[in-house]
């Protein structure tokens, strides 16, 4: 949603106010999606109130490792799960068109746009930044994706500022979090006792907030929120991005690329969980018994042979060139293409890499001379 920046000061809502917000968004005809606990992880799914949230759970993350455990009473204590909001906005499969009829009478039927109204609840600052990155790639360039644009158009975003980080998070280094500074309609910061400090980021958000039972935030509550965010920032790992794009481009033969290739499975998990990776490939699906065909966009990955297949075979035959391509794009050439880095520091590629390859560690190693 768009609109002028809000002017009203922050307010505090309680769990009842949170439920009223969800109910109001649903009453607008929105599909309301938020974090829920499923199969031992946080995933985004339909929610109807705070009762669906993973209250009292926190995440423990490290390279190739993710566990949820009981701790505290926070609704939003657990940070990120395996897949972000990309699953909804830029889904794994998207039909583009299909044909009907044969010969002269063949018609090409474009897939209708998805104009469903949605609300995302609990979008973290890093994921907001990732949505902004995909907006730039998929809606602002020469080749626009109308399906993505339609979903984006009808979206209401309730962000949640992090008051706890996972050990794999590095948004502070990337300048994207842990506090959301733009791109949301409402931003919440969780306070002790199941209350939230709420700020509007758009006119639509301001109108929604004004209709909720709330009280103006006290100075103490504002300080509590800031302290929580500062605590999240202090819990993270770091990456030194200074001069990194040039450095990566200058070191295609650094011994570290061969070393990481020994460990990399080229399984593609890192690209598929990354909230900014936008590549797709197309599948032609033909019917067995007739001339009908359809074209389907599917998530692509630079870790497959198909990705760099040209006449005569794949250009990037092994893990060395594939990992180098991926990381150099994320932290280097993305800047030339889109004016910013393609990494927002969410750390998903670290946790969900089955062998725990860590982009921050690889970047640090590439600064040195060793392997």
């Amino acid at each position: 949603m768009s609109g002028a920046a809000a002017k009203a000061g922050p307010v505090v809502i309680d769990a009842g106010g949170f439920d009223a917000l969800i109910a109001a968004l649903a009453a607008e005809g929105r599909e309301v999606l938020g974090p829920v606990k499923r199969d031992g992880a946080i995933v985004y799914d339909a929610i109807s109130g705070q009762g669906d949230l993973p209250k009292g759970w926190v995440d423990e993350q490290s390279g190739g490792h993710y566990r949820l455990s009981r701790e505290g009473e926070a609704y939003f204590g657990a940070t990120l799960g395996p897949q972000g909001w990309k699953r909804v906005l830029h889904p794994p499969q998207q039909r583009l068109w299909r044909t009907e009829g044969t010969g002269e009478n063949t018609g090409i039927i474009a897939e209708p746009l998805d104009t469903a109204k949605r609300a995302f609840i609990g979008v973290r600052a890093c994921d907001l930044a990732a949505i902004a990155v995909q907006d730039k790639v998929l809606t602002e360039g020469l080749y626009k994706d109308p399906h993505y644009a339609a979903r984006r158009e009808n979206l209401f975003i309730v962000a949640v500022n992090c008051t706890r980080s996972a050990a794999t998070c590095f948004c502070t280094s990337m300048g994207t979090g842990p506090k959301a500074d733009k791109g949301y309609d409402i931003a919440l910061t969780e306070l002790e006792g199941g209350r939230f400090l709420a700020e509007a980021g758009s006119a639509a958000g301001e109108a929604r907030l004004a209709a909720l039972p709330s009280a103006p935030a006290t100075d103490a509550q504002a300080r509590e929120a800031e302290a929580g965010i500062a605590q999240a920032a202090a819990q993270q790992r770091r990456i030194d991005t200074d001069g990194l794009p040039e450095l990566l481009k200058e070191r295609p033969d650094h011994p570290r690329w061969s070393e990481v290739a020994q460990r990399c499975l080229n399984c593609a998990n890192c690209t598929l969980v990354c909230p900014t990776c936008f590549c797709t490939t197309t599948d032609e699906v033909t019917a067995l018994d007739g001339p009908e065909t359809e074209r389907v966009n599917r998530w692509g990955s630079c870790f497959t042979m198909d990705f760099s297949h040209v006449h005569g075979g794949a250009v990037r035959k092994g893990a060395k060139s594939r990992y180098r391509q991926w990381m150099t794009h994320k932290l280097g050439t993305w800047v030339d293409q889109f004016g910013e880095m393609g990494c927002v520091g969410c750390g998903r590629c670290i946790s969900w890499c089955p062998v725990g390859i860590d982009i921050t560690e690889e970047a640090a190693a590439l600064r040195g001379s060793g392997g």
Partner: protein
Amino acid sequence: MRKPRLGVWKFSSCDGCQLSLLDCEDELLAVAGAIDIAYFPEATRKDDDGGRYDIAFVEGSVTTPHEAELIRDVRQRADTLITLGACATSGGIQALKNGADVTDFIAAVYAHPDFIDTLDTATPISDHVKVDFELRGCPISKPHLIELVAATLAGRAPQTPAHSVCYECKLAGHVCVMVAEGKPCLGPVTHAGCGALCPGYARGCYGCFGPKETPNTAALAARLAGNGADKRQIHRLFSTFNTNAPEFREEAKAHE
């Protein structure tokens, strides 16, 4: 236009892949008018007439001297030879006998070992004749098979990507059982095709579709060990339906 003649042959196997073919009944009825199923012992009573075939589907591995001869004969009479499943593609579970003492097995299993005429090994069809396309899986997947038939009839290459099972796992939105639960999973080194069936049921991948493109089995094995698997477990993991696929065989050997 003459309808293409199709024949289906069975070598040493469990019939599961042929059953997958039969299970496509509804879909295949749609093409019944377009192809002539001239030989398919699992489905019809017609004998092989000794003639030429446009397409030969072959299930099973070569484990007897008779089979070693038959596959040459089939190859000579088929324009396109397509293998179905793990047995035909890598030797199958029966390839566990490769390298072991076959006489011992025979004596242990059969009352009259003298009637048994078998080779010391179970080998893939491609060890014996040129194969035009290998469809993976134990058993093969129905969508793959339909895609293969549609593509063959349309004269194009089938779309059966050789990337990892992890790829399908993430497309499906499953939570990774290796990362979130520490369970051993062969998904990162296994060829896609099943739609990440096992991870969808909270199990690790068993590797039914065999090695994927550029598999790094050593790196996966190192991680499995780090997660607590011992040598024997890693050896077993790589020694099932595709035990004779070179990359899995070598990795199993490294953990003997």
